[in-house]
């Protein structure tokens, strides 16, 4: 691929169709006997997306490899019998529909980090957080497997000059001074090794808690903090916007 940037200035590959050979990567993945997990949330009205997400993820997400899906939901009873691929497992984890959690995305980071600590670290090597209102349309394979992986927001591609998704409250820890951001990452699809994801979700949830205590609500919530974290802990691999496309654009 000559038309796109395939390597960041810190030598992290940017994954686009045509930059990799999935057979070689599959062989490497199998060589190491790895297990990958996916964490997703279906709270309140979002239960509606469960079936579509699970159907497409079963078909396209690391197809042929052993994947654990961890589905956090406040309406476990609404889940009809989902047909899982034989190598995949679905774990339904009920969460309280607590009115204190007005801002579910804020708590997600906290939930993920504590579940990594108590459970996931023993069950998977790599973990990815994916928004439930996403339908996978094509194979997402082992090219995503690396220590710390973030997806370039399609937002970045359409508007290189605007920088408004970064926080404009200077007091919020998520405020990034002009000129220091390089890529804009989406919070809808990120992941990596269990230890890296733990560090990321811990750091972000702490900052989110700090914000809340100071009465600051960061616009775009956890995404601002994710970006600030990734500015100082650079991803080892980036996924191009092919891996997540906000259809609202």
């Amino acid at each position: 691929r000559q038309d796109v940037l395939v390597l960041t200035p810190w030598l992290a590959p940017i994954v686009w169709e045509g930059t990799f050979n999935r057979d070689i990567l599959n062989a490497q993945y199998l060589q190491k006997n790895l297990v990958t997990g996916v964490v997703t949330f279906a709270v309140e009205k979002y239960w509606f997306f469960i079936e579509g997400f699970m159907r497409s993820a079963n078909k396209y997400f690391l197809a042929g490899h052993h994947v654990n899906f961890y589905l956090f939901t406040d309406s476990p009873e609404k889940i009809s019998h989902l047909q899982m691929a034989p190598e995949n497992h679905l774990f339904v984890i009920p969460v309280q529909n607590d009115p204190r959690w007005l801002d579910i995305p804020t708590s997600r980071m906290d939930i993920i980090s504590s579940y990594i600590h108590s459970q996931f670290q023993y069950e998977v090597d790599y973990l990815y957080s994916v928004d439930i209102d996403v339908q996978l349309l094509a194979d997402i394979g082992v090219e995503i497997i690396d220590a710390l992986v973030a997806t370039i927001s399609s937002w970045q591609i359409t508007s290189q000059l605007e920088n408004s998704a970064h926080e404009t409250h200077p007091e919020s820890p998520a405020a990034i001074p002009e000129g220091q951001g390089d890529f804009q990452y989406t919070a809808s699809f990120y992941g990596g090794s269990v230890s890296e994801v733990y560090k990321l979700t811990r750091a972000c949830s702490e900052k989110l808690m700090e914000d809340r205590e100071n009465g600051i609500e960061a616009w775009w919530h956890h995404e601002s903090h994710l970006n600030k974290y990734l500015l100082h802990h650079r991803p080892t691999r980036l996924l191009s916007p092919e891996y997540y496309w906000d259809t609202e654009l």
Partner: protein
Amino acid sequence: RRQDVLTVTPWLAPIVWEGTFNPEILDSAYRPLNLTIGVTAFAVGKYTRFVRRFLESAEQHFMRGYRVNYYIFTDSPESIPRAQLRPGRRLLTVPVPKYSSWQEISMRRMETINRHVAAVSHGEVHYLFCLDVDMVFHNPWGPETLGDMVAAIHPGYFQVPREQFPYERRSSSAAFIPKGEGDFYYGGAVFGGLVKNVYEFTKTCHMTILADKANGVMAAWQEESHLNRHFLTHKPSKLLSPEYIWDDRKPKPPEIRLIRFSTVDKNYKEVRN
């Protein structure tokens, strides 16, 4: 950014060329980690004459600002110059026996490095590079080279089709790579990575070298053949362009913008006896 060369392998390992990276960003990521980088170099027989220039140029260009341990393996420790090093950098001489031939010396390197890692360097360094000593640094060699397992593309073969790679082609050798297979031809003069990976790598190479010895076979390019075999099945996580392993006898093509590490001109016959 570079459009004239391949900068990512099909298994998504970066290939490091001038223009693909920002040294400041990398420094800002790596310096806080307080790493110690090890370097092994074999100065056996007449090769001790190369140590001074190797060290002096390394002091200028290799991992400036980082802690460095030079491990010079030699059969004549007294002929290793006492070089003046920058702060945070140490020179350690490791005695090795005198071997009968240069091929033997070359083939024993893997075993020697492996033993030394197990005994000493695993506890002293985070990353280890194994370099040929008859070479000189001309330009910066920094944290852009750090990775889990790092190999360098041989300067003589980076623009050559795969069928012409001088892999070991006899199936009787454990280093055998059949025609139609192979990604790159890697040079034996430069390899490295996390110290535990270098341990595993040198162990495996040593095993295959021993297997060949038992069968009375010596691979076409000694340990370089075995290195290439190993990197075919256990692909490096990062590749260094020939900037990092240049041969001064070659004319410089436009793709090579910067020569960082290259051979010292020498009379091979004279120096190997």
